[in-house]
Structures are given as C-alpha cells and as structure tokens.
C-alpha cells in the first residue's frame, strides 16, 4: 500500500479513527506521519490508552443474533462499539454494561469503589454519610486518647447529622 499523503513511499502506519460512529482510515508513511505530527504535538500517532483498553476487554465471538445485542437504552451504544472505542457514550452505560465492566475495572483500576470526593449536590445524602463515617473514626481515636471533651463534641455532631438524613 502506498502512502496517502505523498503517494510515493510505502505506507507503514495505519490509523482507524471513529468519531461518533463514523469510521475513517488513514494509511501513511513515517515521514508524512512525522510531518503531520508536527502540526500539533502529541497527535497523529502513538498508541493511545483507548487502544490498550479495548485489548483488555472480554469479547464474545461475533454477535450471532442468538444472543440479543447489549445496547445502552439512553445513548444507543453497544458493547462491541465500546470495545472498539474504549469510551462510554453516557453515564447510563456504566449501569448497562456493569457486569462486563467489573472484571475490566479490576485490571485497569486500583479498586472497585470510589472512596474520594463527593460532590455537594449530586452526592446528596452520601456526602453526609461519608462525613458521619469520618467523624466516627475521629470519635474512636479521641476515646482512645481519652480526650473526652472532643469525643462528646463529635458524638453530638454525629447525632445532628444522623437526624439530618433521617
């Protein structure tokens, strides 16, 4: 295959780009790839995390029609599309593909459950629950230190928060 850019050298790099389900292919030689790459550093080459991710997915053999295709009802993305792109189409995809997601998260992530920051609004009661857990740990420590003044203050605060979330 000859390079699409210069039409002279043999194409050694082959890219497939999928943007919103539209597939486009690019076959170019290294010299032209470098030339393109210089337009904006960091693009036009390289093995991205998404390529890597799709290699980690468990794939069923071709969708035969016997099994219904798993498709996100909200955004219409199928699991095999996700496999190709390595990215989800919407927040609901996480629920739709939950079963298959778990083994993958185990491989690419450090854990399965979020333990970090909780947003004020979207987090709702969860934020308060986390705060209660944190205060309970502090309470435990202050009892161990025999700092009963702090312990009493923490206990009151915990009760207050528990009333808040009902």
């Amino acid at each position: 295959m000859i390079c699409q850019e210069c039409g002279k050298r043999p194409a050694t790099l082959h890219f497939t780009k999928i943007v919103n389900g539209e597939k486009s292919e690019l076959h170019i030689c290294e010299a032209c790839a470098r030339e393109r790459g210089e337009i904006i550093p960091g693009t036009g080459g390289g093995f991205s995390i998404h390529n890597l991710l799709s290699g980690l997915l468990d794939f069923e053999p071709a969708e035969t029609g016997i099994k219904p295709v798993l498709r996100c009802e909200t955004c219409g993305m199928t699991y095999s599309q996700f496999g190709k792109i390595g990215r989800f189409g919407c927040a609901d995809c996480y629920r739709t593909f939950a079963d298959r997601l778990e083994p993958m998260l185990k491989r690419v992530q450090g854990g399965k459950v979020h333990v970090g920051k909780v947003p004020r609004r979207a987090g709702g009661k969860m934020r308060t629950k986390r705060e209660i857990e944190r205060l309970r740990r502090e309470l435990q420590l202050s009892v161990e230190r025999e700092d009963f003044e702090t312990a009493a203050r923490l206990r009151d605060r915990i009760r207050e928060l528990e009333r808040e979330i009902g």
Partner: protein
Amino acid sequence: MGKHAFTRQALSPWMKEGGPESDVVLSSRIRLARNLRNRPFPLRATPAQSAEVLDQLMDLAESGRLGGMGPLEAIRVDDLTDLEKMVLVEKHLISPALANESRSAGVILSNRENISVMINEEDHLRIQCLSPGFQVRETWDWASKIDDLFEENLEYAFDEKLGYLTSCPTNVGTGLRASVMMHLPALVITGQINRILSAVTQVGLAVRGLYGEGSEATGNLFQVSNQTTLGQSETEIIDNLYRVTRQIIDQEREARRRLLAESRLRIADRVRRSYGILRYAEIIDSKESAQRLSDLRLGVSLGLVPEVNEQMLNELLVSTQPGFLQHTHGGALSPEQRDAKRAELIRRRLADAG
C-alpha cells in the same frame, strides 16, 4: 499580536513566579474530569446537544458566577485560527484532541493562565490547574475549590459506588490526574533513567513525554502522573505521587552532584558547547533545540552558565515550538524556515541575556 491575551507571550503569567524544587520540577498539574448529569458524553452527543453544553458553560463563565476564579476569558475553539490553537496546545492550556477532534469545543481561561477548563473534550469538563515547581498538594487544594465552584452551578454525573462518571473507564472515580513535569538530564546521562522509570510504573504511576499521552520524551522532560483513579481517595493519590516525585528529585540531584564531582570538565564542556551552538547557530530543528536547551538547563542548575536563568529557558521551551514560532512570525512557515527562525529567536534571547 492576536486579540486573545494568551497569544501575547510564550511564558504564562503563572510560570513567571518560580516554584519549589524548580531545578528538577518545572510544573505541577491537576486535571479533573467531570460530566453533566443526564446528558450524553461528547462522544455520543448530537451536534445540538454539544452546542447546548458549550453555550451553557460559556454563559456560566461570562455570568460572573465563577467569581472565585478571577477574571476569565471564555473562548470557542471554532473562533480560533489554526495557529492560535497550536499556541494553546504548546502552552499546555488545551489538549491536541480539543484542538483537532472535538465538536463544539471551548476553553475557559483564567487571566494568569493557571486555570484552563476544556469543554466538550472527551468529557464535558476537564478542569486543569497549573502551578510552577513542585506543588501537587497545594494545586490539588485549590483545584478542588475550583471544582466546587463549578458544582455550585452545575449538576455532575456521579454514582455512589463508582464516583464521578467519565467517558473513559480509566478516569472513573476521582476523575483525577495529578502530574509533575520533571527535567531529568543527569539520570539520562548516567543511564539510570530506565531503571527508575520502570520502578515508577510499578507503583501505579505513568510516565509520558512533554505533551502527554503518546508524545515522546524530548529534552529529557518527563511527565509523571497517577495511573488509576478508582479505589483511592484524592489525598492518597496525591500523596503517592508526592512521595515518588520526592525520591526522583533526590536521585536526580544526587546524579548531578556525582556528575559534577567525577566528570566536571566533561559535563562543563557539554553544557558550554550546547550554549555555544544555541548562541551562534543559524539553523536548528526542534529536536536539537530541545536537547541543547536541556543541556543548558542542566548547566544553569549546576552554576555553569551564569548568563542564563530558568525563566528564560521556560520561555524558550514554548516560544521555540512550531506553533508559537509561526504565530510570532505572523503566518505559516515551512519546516526549513522554522528552523532558521528558531535559531534566530534563541540567538537573540541569549545575546540579550549575556
């Protein structure tokens, strides 16, 4: 020069202040991936849905409700010229993907250019905060406050178990990518770099080149960042990066001390040769200039080039990039013309200094 403030100078205002451990760590960065609730991610959004997200964020930036971020400029990427986009990428204010591939893309910039919020990249929002030198902990603290400011005005996609939901499952959870840009010439010269980098990847960190994912490490610049985003709190992630970076700083300094003690003449020769080439060359390509500037940076930290300081090198790092060169020139340049312009720019800058 251009109508946008960011095109006026190569060195972002925040880079001028200098920061702790700046002999090894050029900058610290926090990036938070966030999405809006009940809206498809940019990947699956219709053009109308993407345009709506962009409008909403542009309005928010102009409404003054993000007052805690200081004066802001809200920019639609479609309104920028190709050269302006390149300049933004070269200054690390937007990603190559936002410049090239995103639809209805936008960016909100603070006037010191230390906050940049990308809109409709892979996620609806990518909040980026930058600090000079080694300040990951401090940067996380204020990045989290900027995040709160957005959340007061927007509803995020968040799941009790999985945390902040992102388009790519490698960002789900905290959506946090914390990174430091390190200059490690002595570890490269002494051949220790591969050992160290492979150790770094074993403790859950990733190493990349100057322009992030997929870019080569040029000029001995390495970007070290956390690999995973789920299962650890932000503080734990930052702490891990902090500790490992500290160790790399120590190792690099130790290697520099040893170089100076054991081969002072050779290292001084290498540095002063590169200085000579940079001061007098007529043509220099980006790869060579990155390498020579790295030698010079090493020389500056070892006190071998009193004529030059770190800030000049930080400025040259950006102003010698293809986009900025062409922007300064006021139009497109062929690669050969760029190499001549680059050499001219470096010659002038160094002549002014010494």
